């Protein structure tokens, strides 16, 4: 809890510094959040290489937003980072739509999370329960998966998820509850 409060306060300070285009603050923001943004994107695109490329793009876009002084629409550093990340993934699928007829983030065709590189794959192989959850996540509705990853894995609060998704906090709570229920059912199948 204390750790979370310290992080929140640090994020708030970083965000204030970004408002005055502080370059060092941006580098600190990258160090503090690159892993979370990478993980968030990884579960959307199902590829280590694409997740790396898109994470880089996100931070370069965020820097453009900071430089342009367009931070008024964002309340927190996390809402800025996750909103840009979401939009970047949407742009990525739209731009590659002509090349890839089958979208990985399509509700009708759930993703099959199997990575060919060590890292996520190795981690999951070592733990049979985790392996079940990992597979179930791949079968989950993208809307649920996104919120589950943000809340349970990346530890975003309901209010923060509401800011990123543009939904009301009450709706986010409902999605978290339904998502967790759906994930549990899939894991128990």
């Amino acid at each position, binding site marked *: 809890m204390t750790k979370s409060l310290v992080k929140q306060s640090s994020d708030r300070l970083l965000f204030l510094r970004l408002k005055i285009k502080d370059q060092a603050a941006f580098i600190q923001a990258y160090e503090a959040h690159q*892993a979370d943004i990478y993980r968030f994107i990884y579960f959307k695109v199902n590829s280590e290489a694409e997740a790396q490329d898109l994470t880089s793009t996100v931070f370069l876009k965020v820097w453009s937003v900071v430089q342009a002084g367009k931070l008024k629409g964002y309340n927190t550093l996390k809402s800025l980072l996750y909103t840009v990340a979401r939009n970047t993934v949407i742009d*990525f699928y739209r731009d590659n739509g002509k090349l890839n007829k089958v979208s990985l983030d399509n509700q009708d065709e759930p993703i099959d999370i199997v990575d060919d590189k060590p890292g996520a794959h190795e981690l999951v192989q070592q733990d049979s329960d*985790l392996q079940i959850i990992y597979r179930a996540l791949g079968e989950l509705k993208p809307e649920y998966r996104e919120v589950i990853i943000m809340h349970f894995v990346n530890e975003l609060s309901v209010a923060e998820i509401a800011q990123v998704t543009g939904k009301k906090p009450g709706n986010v709570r409902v999605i978290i509850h339904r998502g967790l229920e759906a994930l549990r059912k899939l894991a128990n199948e």
Partner: protein
Amino acid sequence: MNDHFVSQQLKKLRQITPNADWVSQQRQVIMAQVYHGQQPASLAFSRWSDFWLSLKYAFSQPGVVVSAILATVLLGGGTTSYLVGRQAKPGDSLYIAKQLSERAQLLAVSFDRAEQNKLKLALASQRVSEMAAVDQQADQQQAAAISREFKQTVSDVKDRLAQAETKAAAAALVKASQPKTVASNKTEDTFSAATGKDKTGRLEVSQPVTATATKTPSQIIEEAEQLFDKQEYSAAIDKLEAASQLMDSAK
């Protein structure tokens, strides 16, 4: 599994993190981007006369003259470093600058997979050229580093091509499973030169297309890898170029 257990398992997924080398390289790319765009200290010159007056005053100060000379030397040195850096090999002090430049190029086309694959093949060709230039007996570490980078780059391209092929096959399956409303005209796979006669009056005969004549870009890249292993560097570069051209024509 109950909800509590599921949420506990989900927390474990926090251990999924990007590769440490990549994080550190990206930090350098981002730092280069952030500090490169830095605005110089602003001096507002409303009129040219103000500018010349300021310049005259500035150069009357000995410190400024020394600084200007230093800046000229450093800027000149920076340009030279960049040009030399383009020829740098692993282990050289300027190699990191070269890597940053290559990564920036890749980032610029991060939304276009086809372009990114082509660029990666070009970078792989660059590694082959470096390998040909390096003394492999004397610089074993350098040769190993170039070889590792070459393998990683072509492996990335092959992975992406394989993913694209899987997706295309899945899309074709979906399309094939849909009911056909219009009867398709079945065509023969033949060259269309069966109508004329040649100079001797003989009829030209159509030939069926043979599937074995065509190779996929992935197969050509594998051949390039084999040639690289056999130290046939020139042929390896030719293969990489052929794969790139094939990918281009398949667009």
